[in-house]
């Protein structure tokens, strides 16, 4: 229209999850058609598998497992399995999967179609919790558009599991889709595939699938043009806490923690950042420049988790916030494993006493012992996340912890939480 010569966008701009048209026509105009011939072109399959491996993409659901390895294992499955799209996102501080499913549903569904073709699955099942009707409506709209256009290669349906913290754990999700109780399964050998009926199930996080859709179309180069050498691509991060504009941002993987926090416009100086989610870690100011990438975060004892940066302002008590999170996590146990069912409430009770400045002489030794005893002793990693968070709090808020132990709690321990919880958590 205006110019006869249009410059192609820079390669790095090709890898972006958010900000594209939401409808199918716009999606196809932006990204091109879904060129998947199921099971026919082995060269296409090999190219996609190679692209995924070259990209180094790791799962964005919290586990951080390399997607190419997960796929290689699944490629050996026999025909007819189920590709499960995990849109459960039980973490209250995370909204990224809701956002990517709402604003880029076709990318998520395309990623599922690519993987379904690669591991010869016969259906795609999208899991969105009960209550999240806006997300389900957006995905249903996308699925309807695709059905009318005869766009998808295998069927796409939505199911609505219960909205519980651990319902999105992959073995729990496969269990629910299979008509069982929807609780995490003890799996000493994780290489044994999950099953739905007698067929294998492959569970992938919604954001991971959107990345896969772009890598499958454009090759690994645009993905590799973003991020750091240690970890490439972009990532979705939910910013919350003491910020004026909480929400989900898409940043290069490896963006410094504080730069991500700034995207939410902090309303006061930060004494710490909560990184990775409620099963993640507190990070003190000396580490605010750490890149949001797995290796860098590991060197400071943190992990990428599900893409969460929450700002803890100076006017909030870190001990009290940790006690609230511990109380919340204790209430979200699936109720199966003794050390989680009994250990998390015990830890939360002691943290609440500490927050109130009512610690007895044995509290800290008891707390430390329980953190050791509960760690790693569930069928899923729910208790491990709680332990990780509490340990980081004892380190980052060591000064405050000492004052609380002496019966001199922070003046503002009673203040309302600045963190997102489904309902207010009291410490009394």
């Amino acid at each position, binding site marked *: 229209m205006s110019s006869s010569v249009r410059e192609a966008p820079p390669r790095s701009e090709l890898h972006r999850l958010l900000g594209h048209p939401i409808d199918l026509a716009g999606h196809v105009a932006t990204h091109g058609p879904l060129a998947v011939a199921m099971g026919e072109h082995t060269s296409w399959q090999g190219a996609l598998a190679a692209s995924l491996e070259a990209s180094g993409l790791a799962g964005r659901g919290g586990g951080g497992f390399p997607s190419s390895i997960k796929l290689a294992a699944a490629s050996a499955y026999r025909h007819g399995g189920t590709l499960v799209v995990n849109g459960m996102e039980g973490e209250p501080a995370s909204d990224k999967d809701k956002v990517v499913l709402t604003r880029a549903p076709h990318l998520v569904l395309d990623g599922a179609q690519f993987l379904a073709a690669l591991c010869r699955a016969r259906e795609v099942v999208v899991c969105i919790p009960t209550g999240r009707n806006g997300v389900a409506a957006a995905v249903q709209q996308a699925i309807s558009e695709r059905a009318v256009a005869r766009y998808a290669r295998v069927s796409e349906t939505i199911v609505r599991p219960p909205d519980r913290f651990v319902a999105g754990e992959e073995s729990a999700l496969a269990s629910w889709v299979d008509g069982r109780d929807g609780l995490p399964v*003890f799996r000493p050998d994780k290489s044994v595939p999950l099953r739905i009926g007698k067929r294998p199930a492959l569970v992938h996080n919604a954001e991971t699938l959107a990345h896969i859709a772009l890598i499958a179309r454009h090759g690994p180069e645009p993905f590799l043009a973003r991020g750091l050498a240690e970890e490439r691509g972009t990532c979705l991060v939910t910013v919350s806490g003491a910020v004026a504009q909480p929400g989900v941002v898409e940043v290069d993987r490896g963006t410094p923690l504080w730069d991500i926090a700034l995207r939410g416009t902090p309303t006061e100086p930060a004494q710490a950042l909560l990184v990775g989610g409620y099963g993640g870690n507190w990070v003190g100011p000396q580490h605010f420049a750490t890149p949001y990438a797995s290796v860098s975060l590991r060197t400071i004892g943190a992990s990428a988790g599900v893409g969460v940066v929450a700002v803890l302002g100076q006017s909030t008590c870190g001990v009290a916030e940790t006690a609230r999170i511990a109380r919340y996590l204790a209430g979200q146990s699936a109720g199966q*494993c*003794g*050390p989680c069912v009994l250990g998390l409430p015990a830890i939360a009770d002691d943290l609440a006493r500490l927050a109130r400045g009512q610690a007895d002489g044995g509290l800290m030794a008891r707390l430390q012992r329980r953190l050791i*005893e509960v760690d790693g002793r569930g*069928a899923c990693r729910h208790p491990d996340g709680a332990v990780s968070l509490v340990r980081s709090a004892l380190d980052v808020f060591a000064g405050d912890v000492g004052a609380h132990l002496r019966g001199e709690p922070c003046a503002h321990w009673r203040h309302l939480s600045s963190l997102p919880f489904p309902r207010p958590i009291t410490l009394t």
Partner: protein
Amino acid sequence: MTLHITIDPVACDAYGYCAELLPEAIVLDEWGYPIVDGRPLPAELVALATRAVRDCPRRAITVTRKTRAS
């Protein structure tokens, strides 16, 4: 090849028989649930471990072979 004790935490209901049979390898936490360390099972405890597997009312214990440390 080494033998290791594995507890299924979902199945376990803290009966505690295993820790009575195998105090050298299993201790109970304050709620009565067994804690196993990751160490290989010594040969002299294999017979007792086999009994613990059999006697567990919840069938929560297994003895597994590992070909390499994991």
